[in-house]
């Protein structure tokens, strides 16, 4: 009788040990799977990401200068550039569209879709020809899109 009771106690202890191992293993397994799932699709191809960001950065840097040059006309008698850039702020909508179209065409050849909106403009000091132009730039590579509001300061002497 005592032997039977002792056997029974041993087996209960074994079961408890095994249950403990199962519990520990389950916790380990579930935490491993959770961390694995958390990382699914986390890896991105860096080239694609950086090229859109890089392209947008290039556009942001140069768009204002191009707009400035497009809005300011060259004087036909300005042999040695005696006069600084001259233009007319009332032309800004046409010149902005011209600049946008130029960028659109260039970027399309590299697989990017570009768009820009003129949100408004104001002058800092009209006499010195310093204007603030508020724009929204947009760049799309088919997979991702970047858009940002950018304010450019452009300078030219009003006709």
């Amino acid at each position, binding site marked *: 009788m005592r032997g039977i009771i002792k056997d*029974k106690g041993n*087996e*209960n202890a*074994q*079961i408890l040990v*095994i*249950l403990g*191992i*199962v519990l520990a*293993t*389950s916790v380990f*397994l579930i935490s*491993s*799977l959770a961390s*694995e799932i958390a990382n699914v699709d986390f*890896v991105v*191809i860096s*080239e694609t990401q*950086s*090229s859109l960001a*890089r392209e947008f950065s*290039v*556009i942001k*840097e*140069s768009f204002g*200068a*191009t707009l*400035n*040059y*497009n809005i*300011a*006309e*060259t*004087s*036909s*008698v*300005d*042999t*040695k*550039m*005696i*006069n*600084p*850039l001259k233009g007319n702020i009332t032309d800004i909508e046409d010149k902005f569209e*011209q*600049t946008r*179209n*130029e*960028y659109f*065409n*260039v*970027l399309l*050849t*590299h697989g990017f879709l570009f768009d820009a909106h003129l949100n408004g403009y104001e002058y800092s000091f009209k*006499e*010195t020809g310093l204007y603030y132009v508020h724009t929204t730039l947009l760049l799309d590579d088919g997979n991702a899109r970047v858009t940002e509001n950018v304010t450019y300061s452009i300078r030219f*002497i009003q006709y």
Partner: protein
Amino acid sequence: MNDKAQMMVLESIIFAITTIIAIAFLINLSPSSIQRATETTTDLKTIGDDALDTIFAQQTTIKNGGTDQYTGQETYDPTSKLSVCVITNNYAELTASINRSLPTNVFYNVYIADSEGNKVFWCASTGGWSVTDELTPFGTVFTSHHIISINHKHLRVYSDPTSLYLNCVTYQRCHLVDKFTAKYTSSYSYDGATYDFILEMWRI
């Protein structure tokens, strides 16, 4: 008897879990299924982009000949080094700057395009800039580009067609319009300020 059966069930569960863990571990060890581009396909384009970004970022100023009516000081146009090298036909400085950023076994041609799709050869890695100096690409060609802005008046000087007066120095007039005119039509008259600086590179 019941306890023994329970033990066997638990043992089989442990065996199954161990097997699953072993398989998961092996899958984890195997290479990622995500296709990463090889070094040569992305690396050269990235290096080219960085080279152009670096040269572009070197902002310089061009004295535009005007004076501020209030301060009386001379006024300047901010311009990137990339544009200035083009405007002043400074092929030597341009290729030297690019060569500093590229590996020595890389050769390249530089092209400049306007926004209407016209594209002309500008110079090669050897420094040559005439049409006959254009190098023939070898193997895979990688392309980097950078948009540059060029003021109209730096390209077309109406009263003096041969020279350009810039920062108190007289330069030979920029070759850009002549190159476009020679390649396309004599009536080439692009009036935009947007140009695309294209760097086509290949390894030897």
